């Protein structure tokens, strides 16, 4: 087993990448996704593995300095052994061998010898120039074969200029055991990056997409905005505050003594490897004009109902419309279910006209475990949503 060293990913894969498998990080142009491979290299070296890095696009010296720049780590000082086959190797093969087949043979021989001689555990391959020099099939042939597989784990990075068709091919022809594609939503602003777990051969994991940021020289799984909305006094501020590690509410005391939210609630939490920001909207109709602005770029919506107030359904529906909830992952939480109430799931589904796959939970926002259960369900839906 080797680890990617990225919190969240290793857990999702069931503690890491099994020995002898083949992994590909498929990068969309323009996305800072180099860290996935580099983190995995650093992680393998810290675990004292012997690694071979094939980097035909630059010299070993430049490669080390790029790792330094991206990870702020000198990968040669991590304890494991690193053998680098760099651009000078490619140049010498290409100048010596003029035919594609003989180039391939030269590579094959060199790779086999290197893996053998240095007892390599993990083989890291920057694939693009091999693909270009040899064509796809011949380049894939260079990756360790089934015979060697139970020993060597192969991790490949490539720049995907061909899009989804290449990824489906990798998956359908069992070329890789784990396919992670890395993309960006290149809308105007903000830029956000996400990776998609496209395929895993050793576990039943659904295809899922997860946003990330690069922070502190590491990948952080990231959900920039979950919206909590719902009728006045349904418990939104209570929910946000109990969901969060830290947060603020912009509240004001009403004339009759109740506190109501006049701008928004804001909470931050770190949950299952994700950095999450939660925004609570005000519930009072007089603040409706700010809601479209608040929900901009939201990744999911939690609608909070008050179990004791069936008369507030109309307002709940208005808020769902205002937040354009139909386009986003949605979870319904029926709050204050600790109090006597008559609301039931069937009625809620009918009145709000909910799709079958939208979950409805009865909770109390006063209880942290209830709140976390709802957040977990939201995160799960967000990561399965096809962005």
């Amino acid at each position, binding site marked *: 087993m080797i680890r990617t060293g990225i919190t969240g990913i290793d857990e999702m894969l069931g503690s890491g990448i099994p020995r002898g498998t083949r992994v590909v990080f498929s*990068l969309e*142009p*323009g*996305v*800072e996704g*180099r860290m996935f491979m580099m983190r995995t290299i650093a992680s393998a070296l810290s675990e004292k593995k012997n690694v071979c890095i094939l980097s035909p*696009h*630059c*010299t070993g*010296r*430049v*490669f*080390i*300095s*790029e790792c*330094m*720049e991206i990870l702020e780590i000198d990968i040669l000082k991590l304890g494991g052994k690193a053998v680098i086959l760099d*651009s000078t190797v490619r140049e010498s093969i290409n100048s010596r061998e003029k035919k594609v087949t003989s180039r391939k043979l030269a590579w094959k021989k060199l790779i086999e010898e290197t893996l053998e001689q240095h007892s390599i555990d993990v083989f890291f391959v920057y694939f*693009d*120039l091999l693909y*270009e020099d040899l064509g796809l099939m011949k380049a894939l042939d260079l990756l360790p074969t089934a015979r060697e597989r139970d020993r060597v784990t192969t991790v490949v*990075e490539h*720049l995907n*200029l*061909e899009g989804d068709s290449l990824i489906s091919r990798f998956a359908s022809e069992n070329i890789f055991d784990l396919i992670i594609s890395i993309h*960006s939503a*290149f*809308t*105007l*602003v903000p*830029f956000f990056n996400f990776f998609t777990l496209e395929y895993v051969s050793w576990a039943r994991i659904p295809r899922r997409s997860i946003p990330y940021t690069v922070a502190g020289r590491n990948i952080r799984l990231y959900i920039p905005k979950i919206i909590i909305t719902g009728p006045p006094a349904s418990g939104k501020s209570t929910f946000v505050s109990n969901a969060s590690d830290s947060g603020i509410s912009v509240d004001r005391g009403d004339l009759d003594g109740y506190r109501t939210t006049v701008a928004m609630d804001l909470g931050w939490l770190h949950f299952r490897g994700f950095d999450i920001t939660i925004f609570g909207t005000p519930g009072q109709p007089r603040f409706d004009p700010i809601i479209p602005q608040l929900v901009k770029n939201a990744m999911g919506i939690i609608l909070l109902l008050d179990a004791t107030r069936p008369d507030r359904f109309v307002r709940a529906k208005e808020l769902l419309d205002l937040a354009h909830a139909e386009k986003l992952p949605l979870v319904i939480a029926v709050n204050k279910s600790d109090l006597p109430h008559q609301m039931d799931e069937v009625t809620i589904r009918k009145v709000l006209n909910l799709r079958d796959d939208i979950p409805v939970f009865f909770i109390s926002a006063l209880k942290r475990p209830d709140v976390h259960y709802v957040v977990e369900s939201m995160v799960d839906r967000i990561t399965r949503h096809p962005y």
Partner: protein
Amino acid sequence: MYTYKTGISLIDEVKGGISPGSNVLILAPSMSSGEKLGYAIMRPQEGEFALVLTTVMRSVDLLDFFSSEEFNRDAIGVIDSVTKLSTPDVSDTTQVKYVSSPSDLTGIGIKFSSLVESIFNGEFPPSDQALFPPPIRFYIDSLTTLLMYRKLEVLYQFLHVMTSKLKKMEAIGIYILNNESFDERTLSLMKQLMNVVIEVKSEQHGDFLRIRGVPGAPQEWVQFKIHKGTLEMVA
């Protein structure tokens, strides 16, 4: 809609400039003024930004050149694919990013995004941006080098992605290619990505350009001069 002035009166007077999302290819023989023409078209005007991918000059020399030609350096970002070959340890600044070599399309794409993001976030010095989206001119100097490092098909696919990004950003792309060193197939594939093609030729009594792809603009050879980084048409 915003239009980008080119300094070429034949284009600016007919169309007000070049529209966002356009790509301009300069075809020039070696030792001509093609590169300088490229920089003159790339030159950011008031409120604009420019990004340049250099495969020829090191960024230090390029920045010197910008200073001597009185470009607004604050508005320019550079992707340098040259310096690392000799100085592996140089590190990025807000406005100058390094990639390992001209073959490193992964790095080029990433550094491009990062510069664009900085501009959008107001991290370039003239941060009181008046225009949104900020107008950006992106110049690749040169496709000739990129084609020496990568296969035509690969580069085509890469540029295809880049041009669609430029389009989304409402930016323009400018590219220079030495038309003497490539076959017809290369030229015609590259032209497929372009809206405007400017051919350059040098003769004893000066440099000439000819425009293709701008409806209404005259198509004959006209003489030009570049003075302090600014283009002048010779009547």
